[in-house]
């Protein structure tokens, strides 16, 4: 009896990496099966970047100055718009309820979900960013800064956005609301992300900005799953 009692938690702990891996595998597989949905944020990203030269000015020197901010704003909006569907399908078919009831820690399941989301949106956005940089005449020196800052910044955007998605998952009109909730929280990432690109363009050291983005990512990785899990419990039970 006592042996069982001591063994059980240990066994549960050992299973935890397995939980994360299994959940991640499932989410990635589901995403690959619905490949058409993956393209949408990328197309949106491209289209927003096209709007700025048309709306502001096609002048290369002018666009080059704005480019760091524009690419970052476009990436931020693309991530934001892809957030709404993060938990929706799982909520509607009852998978989310099963995840809440399961003995596995919800935080890990949630973290896997967010990781899968980032692999499907944040990572492709990062890889596509140089193309947008070219379209907006971002100087070549800015490209490494752009990609590195997006690589460190987009996971934070996914983590914060997931809090908003979890809070609004049970609501019918989630889309607009999620932007209202999440956009103010995105501001620090935007500031340091576009700051990093600007520093790269002007030849200033990047390390400080990247360290700050990394710090925010670390904080987000630790705290956001807590908030997401709590929010999901409230949304689903309410």
């Amino acid at each position, binding site marked *: 009896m006592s042996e069982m009692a001591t063994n059980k938690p240990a066994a549960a702990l050992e299973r935890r990496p397995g939980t994360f891996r299994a959940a991640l595998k499932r989410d990635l597989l589901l995403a690959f099966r619905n490949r058409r949905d993956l393209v949408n944020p990328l197309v949106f990203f491209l289209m927003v970047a096209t709007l700025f030269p048309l709306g502001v000015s096609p002048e290369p020197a002018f666009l080059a100055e704005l480019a760091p901010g524009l690419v970052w704003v476009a990436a931020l909006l693309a991530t934001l718009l892809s957030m709404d569907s993060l938990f929706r399908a799982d909520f509607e078919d009852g998978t989310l309820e099963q995840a809440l009831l399961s003995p596995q820690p919800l935080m890990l399941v949630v973290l896997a979900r967010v990781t899968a989301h980032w692999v499907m949106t944040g990572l492709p956005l990062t890889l596509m960013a140089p193309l947008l940089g070219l379209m907006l005449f971002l100087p070549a020196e800015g490209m490494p800064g752009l990609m590195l800052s997006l690589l460190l910044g987009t996971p934070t955007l996914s983590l914060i956005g997931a*809090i908003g998605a979890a*809070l*609004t998952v*049970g*609501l019918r*009109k989630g889309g607009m*609301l999620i932007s*209202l*909730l999440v*956009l*103010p*929280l995105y*501001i*620090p990432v935007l*500031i*340091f992300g576009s*700051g990093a690109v600007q520093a790269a363009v002007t030849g200033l050291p990047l390390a400080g900005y990247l360290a*700050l983005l990394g710090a*925010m990512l670390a*904080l987000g990785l630790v*705290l956001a799953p807590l*908030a997401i899990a*709590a*929010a999901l419990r*409230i*949304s689903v*039970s*309410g």
Partner: protein
Amino acid sequence: MPRWFYQLASPRWCYGITGKLLPVFAVLAAVLLLGGTVWALLFAPADYQQGNSFRIIYIHVPSAILAQSCYMLMAIAGAIGLIWKMKVADMVAKSCAPIGASMALLALATGAIWGKPTWGSWWVWDARLTSMLILLFLYFGIMALHAAIEDATTAAQSTAVLALVGLVNIPIIKYSVEWWNTLHQPATFKLTERPAMPAEMWLPLLVMVLGFYCFFAVSLMLRLRHEILARERRAGWVRELVECR
């Protein structure tokens, strides 16, 4: 734990005690705000550089302070409601949001009015202005979430989570905006900061801040009492109260 702490959890007790405290704070707020305003506008000396236009500080600073402390109270009350499932704490948190939002709005509006004569423009992307604007956005988000969820308990819990997430973010936002500002435009124009205001200037400011806090207490209690009655409308004591009228 003292007894009153447990009693706070009872809507009925809260309704009773706020009913007794309300007149006290209302009189205090009226006296402090009236006295402070007269002192600040008529008797405090004019600024040697800004002349009389600086007097808006007596509205601007208290409302900015209150906008921030109101967010703190809202997040703490939300956490208490989330952890101990205390209904009254939920109601306090809900009542805080509109007051805090209007205080942030007041701080921004008075800041704009003050900015025009001193800086020459209504709005400057200064670190403090920007972080106050973001605080206002956070309030808007919380109010929007509250409005979107029909069930009162779920709404309270969800907004509490959001308020706590915001609380973690506020220092990050504050510092990021400050660094961003110093990186982009190194102090082109800054309000000439006097290291120490003379006492004739800051004493009325202190009175105004206290007056604003009393006013906040009054409006919070009014909202809270309304909220208690609305949420407890099926309770026996509320029905008795209504029938007595």
